[in-house]
């Protein structure tokens, strides 16, 4: 019974797929995805492979050679404590990539769980979504600052704070997408045929939501890198002596006249990383089904996540 009913739904999806080229070939024909993925891979390679190979130590202090320009020993020069700037920037890249990736991953998982639960349980839906609204109404950096201040300065606490900030956006996205999928004819058929909610979630909702989660998580990654740098710059993020782009920029600010390389090179790699993540996210979004696209909220830094919800709620009220 159950198999008979769910068979047509999957065959429809397959027919659609046969008309279009495979996902992989569509991806490699989207310039943004190719450029973004290769660029980020190179940055990750630089960050994780070069320091051990070139014996770069981001913590080796040399007070005799503070704030030097570029030389054979220090390709990008040295910082305020005489530490090698290249080693600091690459170590900062590790911090940024790990923080950004973990925040994107954890908020993706929590957001998916909360969103699916909200879509399938109307009582929890009210409670969870009101709480998400409260979190989303507070501008992202402000909420991150307050949370980081309350939890105390450490990299783990920063990741927790950023996860709390970005999970509601994912939860809202997954919820609205899950409700849309739930009302599709093939899912209603499956449900009326006696399929359990678990079956529907695993078989229909998650596969049809995965694409928007990936896109949204890419943007979360980009924003986490920005907010991590901003918070570390303000002294509310990654604590010294751990290297972070925000810390290096903070140290570089006071010596910007004598050692501009600290600000210039760090800004450069920070901007390139965010640019690559944005380009990758835009490319991935272009591949996503148009109907699903409207749920994606980019630039929650600007509070944009709220806009669509207000419009939608207004329309339904």
């Amino acid at each position, binding site marked *: 019974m159950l198999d008979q009913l769910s068979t047509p739904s999957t065959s429809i999806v397959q027919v659609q797929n046969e008309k279009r080229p495979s996902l992989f070939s569509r991806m490699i024909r989207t310039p943004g995805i190719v450029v973004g993925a290769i660029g980020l891979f190179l940055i990750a390679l630089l960050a994780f492979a070069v320091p051990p190979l070139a014996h770069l130590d981001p913590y080796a202090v040399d007070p005799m050679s503070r704030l030097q320009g570029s030389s054979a020993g220090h390709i990008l020069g040295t910082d305020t404590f005489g530490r090698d700037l290249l080693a600091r920037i690459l170590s900062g890249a590790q911090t940024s990539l790990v923080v950004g990736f973990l925040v994107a991953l954890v908020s993706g998982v929590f957001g998916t769980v909360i969103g699916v639960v909200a879509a399938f349980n109307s009582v929890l839906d009210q409670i969870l979504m009101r709480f998400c609204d409260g979190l989303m109404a*507070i501008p992202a950096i402000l*909420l991150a600052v307050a949370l980081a201040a309350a*939890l105390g300065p450490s990299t783990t606490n920063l990741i927790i704070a950023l996860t709390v900030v970005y999970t509601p956006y994912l939860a809202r996205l997954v919820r609205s997408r899950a409700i849309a999928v739930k009302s599709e004819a093939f899912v209603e058929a499956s449900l009326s045929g006696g399929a359990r909610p678990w079956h529907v979630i695993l078989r229909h909702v998650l596969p049809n939501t995965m694409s928007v989660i990936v896109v949204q998580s890419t943007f979360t990654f980009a924003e986490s890198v920005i907010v991590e740098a901003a918070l570390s710059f303000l002294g509310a993020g990654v604590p010294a002596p751990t290297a972070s782009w925000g810390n290096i920029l903070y140290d*570089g600010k006071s010596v910007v006249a004598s050692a501009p390389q600290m600000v*210039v090179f760090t800004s450069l790699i920070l901007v390139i990383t965010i640019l690559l993540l944005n380009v990758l996210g835009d490319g991935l979004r272009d591949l996503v089904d148009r109907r699903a696209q409207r749920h994606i909220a980019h630039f929650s*830094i600007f509070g944009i996540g709220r806009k669509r919800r207000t419009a939608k709620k207004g329309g339904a009220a």
Partner: protein
Amino acid sequence: MLMYVAKRLLALIPLLFAVSVVIFSILHLTPGDPARAMLGAKASAAQVDALRERLGLNEPLIIQYFQWVADALRGDLGDSIFLRKSVVAAISDNVQPTMQLALLAIIFALVISIPFGTLAARYRGGVLDQTVNGFTLIGLAVPSFVLGLLLILLFGVWLRVLPVSGYTNPFEDFGRGMDSLLLPALALGATISAYITRTTRAAVLDVLNAEYIDAARSRGVGERRLLFSHTLKNAGLPILTVVGLTFGALVTGAAVIETIFNIPGLGSLLIQAIPRRDYAVIQGVVLLVTVVFLLVNLLVDILYGFIDPRVRLAKSGGK
């Protein structure tokens, strides 16, 4: 129209309730005793007890929450034990530079983004459009504090034409005041202008494809008038919405920018409160900015309904 405004106001109440719960919870998330965290390890047990008593931390959580909300509704956000004044006084002492900075930044952003966004849409696919798109792509990847540092390097260190630090109130000394606000406002406005340019371009493109534009053109309306009068007026609504939404980014961006340029605003107040664990100030600033942010967006929503009757009909009488 009144019904519409009332409905929007009523919808704000559950949201404010959720916001207040979140902000209240933040303080109580602190691992360990907040009073101990504020006073540091050297404080005696008696001092910690006295502060706990003063902050009302010995009451049950639910009582503490309602006490805090009741005080906030009366306009009392508590006292900062470090600044030795009330949080409301601290905020009102620091709010002026932030508002000036935010206002100047949004003016910069609009002056850059409205013409470029409109022209990019008009000459879609052309050189100008591609240049504008390239700049917005980069603009969205440059955080305002990074741009601020680079501007300091360029204008303050290399060209030596503008001050890189400090603040003068433009109402007291207009020239010096504007000099002190120019770089921070530019840093803040540029990032936001990238976003508004994109919205403007998309909104103008939408309108340019509308049939009433074809109709106006066939009536003999000139191209320039068509673009800046007919099109831009109708594209104004989405642009207005985005301007309202960027308010949150403006104020939080200002918080970071202020610390770079040593401007004594709300951001500096907030950032100085973090290492001191001055929770009353942190809660107060976050609450105030969020409430103002929500009110600004409510105002935009109401303006939206005021300008475009379709919006208010769809939202209040549609069903």
